[in-house]
């Protein structure tokens, strides 16, 4: 049954509280300082003025921050998969003493978020002079309890005969783990990676407490600093930085919408 116009408008109207703020962000980013001072809440800029973007690039090394953020999120996501595969394999497919205990330990870490860990990790890394390094940003997240759990769950549905057959063909355990299994676990691996990537790409807390140095600083941190540095009305510059910060996340969302939504919903339902 096709919807009538008023109801169609109603559907879009529901999304307006989410769409208008984005529009306001983009609109502000194209304003100039005199415009902003004269009429701060004018809905539209006088034109597509790029001054604010130029100011962002002048205030911080956008390219370097972008590279740091992407490298960090990529390294974390890949490391998590690389470690979760063998761990999940051992936990779901092999019989050995202490299996229940090991699984319990992995699940228990769901209880220990970054906010609980950061004080001792900070003092530990400060002692070995590793704060302000990529290591400090990546290594504490090399294991994801949730990722390990999801991959273990997915492995439960892989028939053991398949692994036995591969063993008979002479495949070693590492070949089985890194060659045979990944294609079979693809949806779970993609979901685990995407969630981790987006989470860490967006993360503000950990880079904030672990870095003080430009060379390893990430984009969320840099953009948040834009606001702290400035005095007075510099909202056009802050919003330009904000467009640069949210655009990659929104683009990734547009490209992987179905996987991300399925992963979000599946996290609850175990599908």
């Amino acid at each position, binding site marked *: 049954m096709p919807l009538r116009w008023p109801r169609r408008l109603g559907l879009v109207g529901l999304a307006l509280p989410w769409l208008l703020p984005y529009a306001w962000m983009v609109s502000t980013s194209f304003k100039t300082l005199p415009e902003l001072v004269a009429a701060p809440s004018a809905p539209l800029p006088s034109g597509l003025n790029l001054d604010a973007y130029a100011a962002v690039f002048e205030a911080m090394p956008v390219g370097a921050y972008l590279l740091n953020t992407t490298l960090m999120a990529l390294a974390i996501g890949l490391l998590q998969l690389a470690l979760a595969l063998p761990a999940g394999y051992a936990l779901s497919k092999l019989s050995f003493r202490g299996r229940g205990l090991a699984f319990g330990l992995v699940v228990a870490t769901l209880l220990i978020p970054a906010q609980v860990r950061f004080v001792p990790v900070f003092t530990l890394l400060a002692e070995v002079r590793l704060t302000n390094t990529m290591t400090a940003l990546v290594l504490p997240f090399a294991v994801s309890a949730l990722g390990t759990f999801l991959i273990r769950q997915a492995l439960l549905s892989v028939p053991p005969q398949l692994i036995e057959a591969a063993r008979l063909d002479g495949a070693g*355990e590492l070949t089985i783990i890194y060659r045979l299994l990944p294609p079979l676990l693809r949806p779970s691996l993609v979901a685990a990676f995407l969630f981790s990537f987006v989470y860490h790409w967006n993360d503000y807390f950990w880079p904030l407490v672990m870095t003080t140095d430009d060379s390893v600083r990430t984009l969320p941190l840099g953009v*948040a600093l834009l606001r702290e540095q400035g005095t007075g009305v510099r909202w056009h510059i802050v919003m330009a930085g904000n467009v640069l910060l949210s655009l990659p996340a929104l683009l990734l969302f547009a490209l992987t919408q179905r996987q991300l939504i399925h992963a979000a919903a599946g996290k609850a339902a175990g599908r």
Partner: protein
Amino acid sequence: MKLLSPRRPTDPYLLLLPTLLILGCFFFYPLLAAGKLSLYSWDLLTPPRFVGLDNYRALWSEGLLLHSLELTLVFSLGVVTASTILGLALALLLNRPGRLAAFARASIFSAYIVSWVSVALLWLWILDADGGALNAALQRLGLPGWRWLSDPRLALPSLAAVTVWKLAGYAMILYLAGLQDVPAHLLEAAALDGAGRWQRFRHVTWPLLRPTTAFVTSTGAIASFQVFDVVRVMTQGGPMDHTNVLVYAIYEQIFLNLRVGRASALVVVFFLVLLGLTLWQLRLWLRREGAEGQSPPA
């Protein structure tokens, strides 16, 4: 479940070694270390000094502990209630085929994907008392503007509203998934028996969504309990400590006051409350696990 015997008896342990090593260094050691550090006075410059329970006593008598805990719980309760109701309402309204509904769903969910910093900066500008869009809109309607973030009574509710704006899309997606599991024939049968829209929702849909509601509220509670980014970017704990939630208080103790011991004592309290929340969530999850294989809370 059929298990294979390992080729070499050491294989399983070697495969688990990297994972357990990381968990030991960066999860379990820090937890124990926080407990230990909470008994010391340490400014990161001079050697730590054992002080027993003094950190806890000081936090208690200064009122910071109770104040932060209360703020965090109130914030959490507000966020969970509002985002659950809003998420459910949006899911019910947008649970239909068609491109427009899909567009609306994606727009609302996108706030969940964008970073907390983006959301916080965006709303900092919208809620700005002088040039912000919200006050400008209110004035156009002939209403007075408010100091959303600097009025002590409004600051925490404003931060909660921003958090709800970000999380509602996630609750909506979970409810949409839950709605797929409501059998159409039950709703049709109820309709044939003369049940109206509200009655069908109240007596068929809502009871069947119970597990989803349990998941939405418990994950929301844990997420909102850890609130930090919006506070750091939007109010820095102010005005006059009215948004000084637990994680922000921890951050302030270590990085602004250089009091590692006090920060650790707050970490211990934070962990214990989180533990309570998670055990409650686990119970909800275990209760529903009997029927189907579900993944754990995250």
